[in-house]
């Protein structure tokens, strides 16, 4: 009996503690930044590895602060911010959605903090025998991004630069985020897919990487800004400073990103 009573008490205590935790973080949102709190960083899916590595650095440099990372397609993140979800920093894979949010007065000035290029990936055993972009027209199952997400529109640019008509390709899926493309190729369900260099980097040995000709390349520029409704603007600025610092830039470079564009 006593065991059961203890178990019940413990079960009741967990939600209570969770509620208390939420309460303290939201009160911290309103109070001065020096006391710490939770910084909500909304970042494009392709930033997953780089920002996950930077979060502990930020937390050790800013005692009392926790970084909560939310990785989704840039468009979904923008929709969440429009719906009023608690966000402090928004980092997107193209200027499209940040500009849209700025037009709605929901995002402040942005800083371009990284660039990314596209590559073609195939499963390790390369079942369709793809060795160059031109091989794609032989009917290989290709997965691309939906034009609504940055990777999809960059892919359209690359194909146009290459002079490849999309209707000559066997596109089997238009994914809602770049990680969906990466997973379907690395699992071997698709024969090839266009992803960012940083994603290919994260996939490591599970895929083959085919570089695109420099003339066909579309360079993705990543802007980042502070959400207007944020109660943690000082901490948000410190996150941006960290990403722009040589330390932050080194982490991005190590994950396959290009440096922040100058000027």
């Amino acid at each position, binding site marked *: 009996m006593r065991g059961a009573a203890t178990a019940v008490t413990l079960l009741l205590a967990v939600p209570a503690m969770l509620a208390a935790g939420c309460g303290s973080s939201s009160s911290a949102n309103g109070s001065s930044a020096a006391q710490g709190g939770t910084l909500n960083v909304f970042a494009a899916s392709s930033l997953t590895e780089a920002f996950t590595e930077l979060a502990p650095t930020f937390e050790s440099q800013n005692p009392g602060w926790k970084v909560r990372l939310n990785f989704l397609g840039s*468009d*979904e993140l*923008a*929709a969440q911010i429009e719906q009023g979800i608690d966000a402090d920093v928004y980092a997107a894979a193209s200027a499209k*959605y940040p500009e849209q949010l700025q037009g709605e007065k929901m995002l402040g000035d942005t800083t371009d903090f990284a660039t990314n290029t596209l590559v073609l990936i195939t499963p390790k055993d390369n079942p369709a025998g793809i060795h160059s972009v031109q091989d794609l027209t032989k009917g290989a*199952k290709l*997965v691309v991004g*939906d*034009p*609504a997400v940055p990777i999809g529109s960059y892919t359209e640019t690359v194909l146009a630069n290459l002079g490849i008509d999309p209707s000559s390709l066997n*596109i*089997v*899926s*238009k*994914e*809602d985020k770049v990680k*969906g493309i990466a997973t*379907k190729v690395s*699992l*071997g*369900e*698709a024969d090839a897919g266009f992803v960012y260099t940083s994603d290919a980097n994260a996939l490591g040995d599970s895929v083959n990487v085919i570089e695109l000709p420099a003339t066909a390349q579309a360079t993705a520029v990543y802007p980042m800004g502070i959400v207007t409704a944020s109660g943690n603007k000082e901490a948000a600025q410190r996150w941006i400073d960290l990403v722009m610092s040589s330390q932050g830039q080194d982490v991005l470079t190590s994950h396959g990103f290009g440096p922040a564009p100058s000027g």
Partner: protein
Amino acid sequence: MFSAGDIVAGLDSPVARDALRLSLETSLTALAVMVLVGTPIAYMLGTRDFPGKSVVVTAFELPLVLPPAVAGLGLLFAFGRRGLLGGELSALGLEIPFTRLAVVLAMTFVASPLYVRQAQSAFAAVDDDLLAAARTLGAGETRTFLRVAIPVAAQGLGAGAALGWARALGEFGATIIFAGSLQGVTQTAPIAIYIGFDSDPDAAFAVAAVLIAASALVLLSVKLLARGGARRFGPA
């Protein structure tokens, strides 16, 4: 802010129309599969006891509680090109992921437990004496099932089919993992809403309005069926 005219205009987009047509066709196919295969299974589960029955029932009901994304991964591991049956399927010239068949499979997998559960309790509620009488009068097992059990359990089966169909229509998580998203092939209405939310909100809202209407209609018909059933079998 959103008028009937906007909905009609939104439905004019090819993305919206393709998605609704695909959803209708695939969900009805999934419904046919779950009724044809699920009804005999539900009859057996509802009218018989056998060792290990609860294990079998649990296995059938598992998709009901699984997160849809897990269901999608499970389907990939079973039917994907690199899945357990991938080699055999490839030998037959069949690659399921990214096809309409994948959409139907995902829908059937997540929705059939709803139908089977409801059908099972409908069959369990059929008076044993009725079935026994049919057998005494010389009806075989199949004839008893088709001519006695199904007509008596019809209301429950109808309600189960309506719920199963609605769940198939709303399927999202397993589909996007197992079948991907391609307009006119695998992009069902829920996926079109999800992807189109930012790029084409009018079409997304229009498709959503159709889904709300369809779901409401299904729920209403389940309630009417239940009331009809109560009138027919309830105390006079």
